[in-house]
């Protein structure tokens, strides 16, 4: 368990050899972003864009992709897109809850902050990051600490907020990254 979870931890130093696939993938993603940002499609700006994307891809392609992660990328991203509406719905519910707490006159009686600990079964860094940020965005909970093995410490604002963790959200995040 340990070695597989820790594979992507340290970024490779630039001197190590790189494969060409992540480089090209980074280049095309960045070029899409460039076209969106620029909005000018004449020769000068397009060629500037190609040069800039080459520079950034050379500088940072090992940050965006580590070589083992490129397989099955598209399926993961499609599943991630399907996760977003559910997450937005949860975020909206969470905000209504916090808004209710904020404007409640006897707020001090309602809240009961505590720190919850649990162990998640997710393994890779990216799924842990998605889960941790989803926790921070949704009902009354903030991720305090995550270890590489998936030990979470979560600060919850009141009892009903912290109870459903890890629960459904972990299931869904696990399904995205097929773990």
């Amino acid at each position, binding site marked *: 368990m340990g070695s597989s979870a820790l594979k992507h931890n340290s970024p490779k130093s630039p001197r190590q050899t790189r494969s060409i696939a992540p480089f090209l993938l980074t280049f095309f993603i960045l070029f899409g972003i460039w076209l969106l940002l620029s909005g000018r499609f004449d020769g000068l700006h397009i060629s500037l864009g190609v040069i800039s994307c080459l520079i950034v891809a050379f500088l940072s392609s090992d940050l965006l992709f580590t070589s083992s992660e490129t397989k099955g990328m598209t399926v993961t991203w499609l599943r991630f897109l399907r996760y977003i509406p559910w997450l937005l719905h949860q975020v909206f519910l969470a905000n209504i809850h916090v808004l209710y707490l904020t404007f409640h006159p006897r707020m001090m009686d309602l809240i009961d902050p505590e720190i919850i600990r649990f162990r998640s079964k997710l393994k890779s860094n990216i799924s842990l990051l998605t889960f941790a940020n989803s926790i*921070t965005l949704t009902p009354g909970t903030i991720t305090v600490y995550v270890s590489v093995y998936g030990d979470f410490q979560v600060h919850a*604002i009141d009892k009903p907020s912290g109870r459903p963790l890890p629960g459904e959200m972990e299931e869904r995040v696990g399904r995205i990254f097929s773990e």
Partner: protein
Amino acid sequence: MNIIVIIFLVLGLIFFTGGSVGIIRFPDFYSRLHPAGKLDTTGLLMTMLAAALYTIQDFSTESLLTGLKIMLIVVFVFITGPTATHAIVDAGIRAGLRPWTKKEKAD
């Protein structure tokens, strides 16, 4: 169309107000982060949705790109907002601030 824009603007304003009032009313540093982190992010989402809808009303390539750029801000904030919140919490824990709880209050 304008009505939808107005509804989104007002919703965004409500969330922003909630965030600001929350960080004054809540008792300690950790609980203040809940309104600051969540309500502001959602307020931004609502406001940006309104702005993007208003921008792409007179439809052209440029206005479409501008609307997409506005949504790019939302994506960026949705990734970085929780991370910033987490960074502040982490700083609090490492600096040795103890979370406020009800039991301590009762003693």
